[in-house]
Structure formats: structure tokens, C-alpha cells
């Protein structure tokens, strides 16, 4: 076992799965890079952040396909390939762009298995970048996974660390349903021990990062680290926080959500997706409906404000949910039943 970054873990998952299964193909803008240039055998980019670098050299242009800047073509090609027996891994460079290509997964791939009575399937993955924090402004910084979560037939995962990134991506590739795989831009350099062997993490199985009996903090993707930072502050105040990363929003590990509230009676949800109709709101509604009697305090939801992501660094930093907001929310729920 060696230490790998999230980026390396994703590359390794793609490499190992492509070696195992020749029906896997990659497609997207610059997933090779340099295609059509005067230099032969040029692998220029490997994706905008280098995640797919090295794959074209091993698998060639038939399996690592550079596309034009046309998201509708990328996802349309992937959905069609999936239906006809391939296992495409398409790259939607920024999740913010889903608007121009949503039909392929929203109204096509996610409906096939249902509409054809199980006789068709859509084993495709859409790898896509989410998240604020890179000064990329309002059109390249969003985390619209709440939209993907709301679509039946579509699965949605968002790894928070390198171990999960490799195992969840392998699961996504082997899964027979379309999966949107959300990679947070600020997490690519996070490293941890990752097995060299292949492994798949089942969807709908939350990761419990820390156990605690006072307050449950549910957080996704990069918000997990903000929650951990808050938990350290709370620990110094004698408040034991349980940190839960559901890892996938669809399917959602509702059993673990109820179990943790059973133990703590207090719930804080941290979610970068949206200030309205986000994944946090979905979880809060579920817990209120299914476990209201267990709650000792109103559920607290921490999201960005209902505004576009600001370009001003000072404003963007305030826009991203921060640890002190989680600490204040935890204190509030701790006081509620005094």
C-alpha cells in the first residue's frame, strides 16, 4: 500500500479497469490533449488537471477519445455507446456545464432500463469537477449534485478522499446504471494510503470518520474537512461530534442517518450544493419525517448563500461554508434541550 493523491487514485482506477475490461472507453475535452496537432504521439494534457494523463499512451485513440468542445456530443456519444454494450467514462470538464448536455443523462440514459423493462442498460460514468475555492468564478465553481440526485435512475457520488475516489470510481464503472462522479477541485492533491489492488466500494454505504455521542455532522465531499475542523474545536469545548460522509447522495445511506440521530439526537448537515432544494434539505426532510421523535433540537443546515459563487476572493471565501458556522450550529443544537 502506498500513499496516493485523489488525482492518482482516480488515474489508477481508470487504468486498472481499462486493463481489466476492453469495453471501457474514455471521452472528453483534452482527455488526451494535443489530438490533431502536427506532432505525432502527443499526449499533451490528460484532462485539464492531468487526471487521464498516461492513458492514451497505453490504450490509444480508440479508447481515449478527444472530443470537440461540445458537451452535448460527449454525453450523447457516451449514452449511445453504453446502450450498445460499451462502458464509457465521459468527462464533463465542469459540472456547471450540465445545462447544455443534460438530455443525454436526464431524459435518456437514466430512463432506458426502466422504459425497456430491464432489457436495456446504461453502464456509463460522467466524471465531472465540482466546487468553489479555485477563484474560477460563478460559471466554473458550482456543485450541482443536488440536481443529479433528484433524477431517478441516475446515481450520484462525491468522494472526499483518495481511498474512496478509487473504490467508488471502480464501482461506478462496474455499475450498470449511469453514474455522475463528482470530483471536488480542491481535493485532487489530498493524499492517503490507497491499496494498489483493485477494489469497489458499494454505493449507499456512508463513511463514519469520527464517532461522537453529542451531535451528528453530515458532510459531503470537501465539506468533510471543514466538518472535521469544526469537530476539533467542538472537542475542546467538550462536545463530541460524529462525522458522517454519505459518499453518495443517490443512493443515500438512510440507515446510517437514522442510526446516528438515534445516538446523538442532534443533526447538522453541511452541503455545498445549494441554499435551496439542496441535498442537505433532502436529508433534513427525510430525518424529520422518519426520526422526528429522536431529535432533541431542530436540524441545522449549513450551505452557501443563495447567490452565484463570487469571483472576488474575499467574497468567495465567505461564500464557502466554514468551520465556525458549523461550530455555532453545533452549539445551538447543544443548547436547545438545556
Amino acid at each position, binding site marked *: 500500500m502506498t500513499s496516493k493523491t485523489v488525482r492518482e487514485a482516480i488515474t489508477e482506477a481508470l487504468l486498472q479497469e481499462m486493463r481489466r475490461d476492453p469495453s471501457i472507453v474514455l471521452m472528453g475535452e483534452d482527455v488526451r490533449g494535443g489530438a490533431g496537432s502536427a506532432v505525432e504521439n502527443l499526449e499533451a494534457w490528460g484532462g485539464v488537471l492531468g487526471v487521464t494523463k498516461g492513458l492514451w499512451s497505453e490504450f490509444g485513440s480508440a479508447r481515449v477519445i478527444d472530443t470537440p468542445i461540445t458537451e452535448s456530443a460527449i454525453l450523447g456519444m457516451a449514452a449511445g455507446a453504453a446502450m450498445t454494450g460499451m462502458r464509457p467514462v465521459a468527462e464533463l470538464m465542469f459540472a456547471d456545464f450540465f445545462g447544455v448536455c443534460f438530455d443525454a443523462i436526464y431524459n435518456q440514459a437514466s430512463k432506458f432500463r426502466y422504459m425497456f423493462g430491464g432489457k436495456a442498460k446504461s453502464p456509463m460514468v460522467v466524471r465531472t469537477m465540482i466546487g468553489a475555492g479555485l477563484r474560477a468564478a460563478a460559471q466554473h465553481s458550482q456543485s450541482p449534485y443536488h440536481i443529479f440526485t433528484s433524477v431517478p435512475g441516475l446515481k450520484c457520488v462525491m468522494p472526499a478522499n483518495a481511498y474512496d475516489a478509487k473504490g467508488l470510481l471502480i464501482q461506478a464503472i462496474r455499475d450498470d446504471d449511469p453514474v455522475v462522479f463528482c470530483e471536488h477541485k480542491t481535493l485532487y492533491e489530498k493524499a492517503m494510503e490507497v491499496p494498489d489492488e483493485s477494489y469497489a*466500494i458499494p454505493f449507499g454505504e456512508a463513511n463514519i470518520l469520527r464517532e461522537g455521542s453529542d451531535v451528528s455532522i453530515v458532510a459531503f465531499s470537501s465539506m468533510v474537512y471543514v466538518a472535521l475542523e469544526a469537530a476539533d474545536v467542538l472537542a475542546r469545548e467538550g462536545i463530541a461530534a460524529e462525522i458522517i460522509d454519505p459518499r453518495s447522495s443517490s443512493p443515500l445511506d438512510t440507515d446510517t442517518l437514522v442510526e446516528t440521530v438515534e445516538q446523538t439526537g442532534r443533526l447538522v448537515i453541511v452541503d455545498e450544493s445549494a441554499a435551496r432544494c439542496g441535498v442537505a434539505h433532502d436529508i433534513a426532510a427525510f430525518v424529520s419525517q422518519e426520526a422526528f421523535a429522536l431529535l432533541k433540537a431542530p436540524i441545522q443546515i449549513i450551505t452557501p448563500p443563495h447567490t452565484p459563487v463570487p469571483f472576488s476572493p474575499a467574497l468567495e471565501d465567505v461564500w464557502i461554508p466554514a468551520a465556525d458556522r458549523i461550530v455555532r450550529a453545533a452549539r445551538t443544537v447543544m443548547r436547545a434541550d438545556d
Partner: protein
Amino acid sequence: MIDPPPGIHAITVPKWGLSMEEGVIVCWHVKPGDAIRPQQDLLDIETSKIVNAVESQCTGVLRRILAPPGATVAIGQLIGVVADAAVAEADIDAFVAEFQQHHVLLEAEQSEESQARFITLDKQRIHYLAFENTAAPRLPVVMIHGFGGDSGNWMFNLAEIAGRQSVYALDLPGHGASSKSITDASLFGLAAVVSAFGDALGLNKYHLIGHSLGGAVAMEIAKTRPASAASLALIAPAGLGTSINPAYIQGFIDGQSRREIKRIVEMLFFDKTLVSREMVDNILRYKRLDGVDKALREIAGHVFPQGRQAYDFSDWLKGASALPVTVIWGAADEVASADHLDGLGEHVDIHIIADAGHMPQMEAAGKVNQLLMAHLSACK
């Protein structure tokens, strides 16, 4: 480490398992001024894997506690001092100061004394831990873990044995960091891998310590290659009787979620609180690896078909009167039961440990180490 002056005994943080670098003091069971006797539980230390008690090795009075509950402590760190009542306070302070100065120097030059190594046998890459003790001209020890386990199951036992003689703990194929594809998943095949391992390392003759399935593997080796086996120490072994808890075997194979695996792993212990989140996470990480599911099903199909044990070595063991054998069993074992312990013969030394389940080498490590050391010392 420095030798303490006469009458003074250092309590240091033990190294439990390869990956342990530090631990957290959970609580002290004794307070300064208390009389201390050997094998008494002094304190509990939590590692990333498990909470375990540090036992006294000496007699005296607890004179110093140098790390309070909650403190993070490094392996080898001085955390307490036991001394005869007659030793002066100033002498203890001088010892503490000297120890701590040396410990800093030691840390700077310390190299890993054991190594994780790999060897390829019959197309299977086998991972093993080696603690080679060249100072002692004694026969080496080979340790074999149980079904679904790995060499890490010996984390509390390896250092103790390594202090006396060389010891090797391997991961069976399909387990730990070894290859997940198994050439022959029968008991014969597993025993052949261990025998080939011994041959490849030039061990010739060795003591076999086996836990659960590893116990049956050890007996198969001793039975088919008697010249290799110097002795047998069997901890909650498979292969002595036909019953095995099918709920455990099937549950371990089928379990996919933390919830399911926690319930299953709790069957291994008398004290269910020992089953930590980390322990369950580590088992899930292992089970998720490609090939593990198939490997476990293949082994279970051979060794535990239809929820029964396929091999019973009882009659053979009765007849193997020249072989020194120690059998250790937890009284609260929920996985394997000792059907035929009666009448195994004079050469079989049987110890039942109260308040321990299927993993006495972890749950009652101090007691098991004592029994293993006595067993190894008695073997010529």
C-alpha cells in the same frame, strides 16, 4: 533503551503490530503507591486498531505515572516507573531523566526491526512479516492466521516471541496483502503453501502456531510433513471436531456493510466493545479487494462445506504422541467449539481462558503470550 538500575522497572509503550507508532492512554488501573505484581493489568492503551491492556512484568510499587489518560504516547516511551519501596525518590527522578534523554537519541537512529516482505510461491505472491533473531540459536516459529484474518492478528504476540527466537507470520493466499487468487483452496493446498514458504526460507524445522483455520493448516503440515514440525500451538483451532458456527462463516463472506460486518465480528470477541469502527473498516477494506470474495468462498467450500468442518484431526493428534502440543481456547468462543478435547493424550496441553472469545491472542494477549512462551521453552 537503557537498563534501569537495580530495583527500578520501566513501564514503556509496547509496539503492537507493524503499523503502530503511537497510542493513546485510555486509563490507568493502578495509582502511585499501589503494589504491583507480574501479569497485573497496569493501564489500557488505544491504538488505531484496538484497545489493549499493558501488563506488569515485575514486582514492586508504582512510583511514577508519566502519561495521563488522553495522552498520545510513542512506542518505547517511558510512561511509568515501578520500583522497590526502598528506592529513593531522587534515584527514580535520575532514572526518568536519563531514560528520556536516551529515548530521544534512540528514536533518531532507530531502524525498523521487522520487515514486511513478499515471496512468490506457485504463482501466489505471499506477504509475510519476519522478525529474525540471530542471537538465539533456537528453531524459528511460523504463525498461521485464521479464515478471513491476516498476519496482523498476531500484533500483540509477535514482539514477545521475537524476543526469544525468529518468527515469521505469513498471510495465507486470499488474505491480507497476499495474492487473492488461490491455486488450491483446499486445506492440503493451504498447507502446501506454508510448507513451501518454510522451504523457500530454508527453515527446515519450525514451531507452528496456528489460529482457527490456521490451526487446521498447522495440523495438516505436522501430519503430512512430520519432519518439519517441531511443535504445535493451536489457538481455537479448526480441525478438532466437526462443528463450526455457520452464521459466522457465511456472515463474514456475505457481509457488505459496516452494520453487517460489525455484528459478525462481534462474534469473535467476549468483550464486544473491542470491535472498533477501525477494526470493522479494515475488514471491509480487505473484503472489497478484487478476488477476496471468491477466495473466501473457495476456502469455505473446501474446509467448511455445508456449515460443518470437513477435516477432523482428533484421531491423528491422539496418535502423534511425540509431538509437543499446546491447545488454547477462549471459554466464550462463539465460532469454533472444542468437541473432542477430552482424551487427546498426555502430550496435549490444554488451556481454557475465561472471558475470551475466538481471538484470545488479541483479547487475552498477555495470558496467551505466557502460554506460548512456556510452550516454546518446554520444546527441545
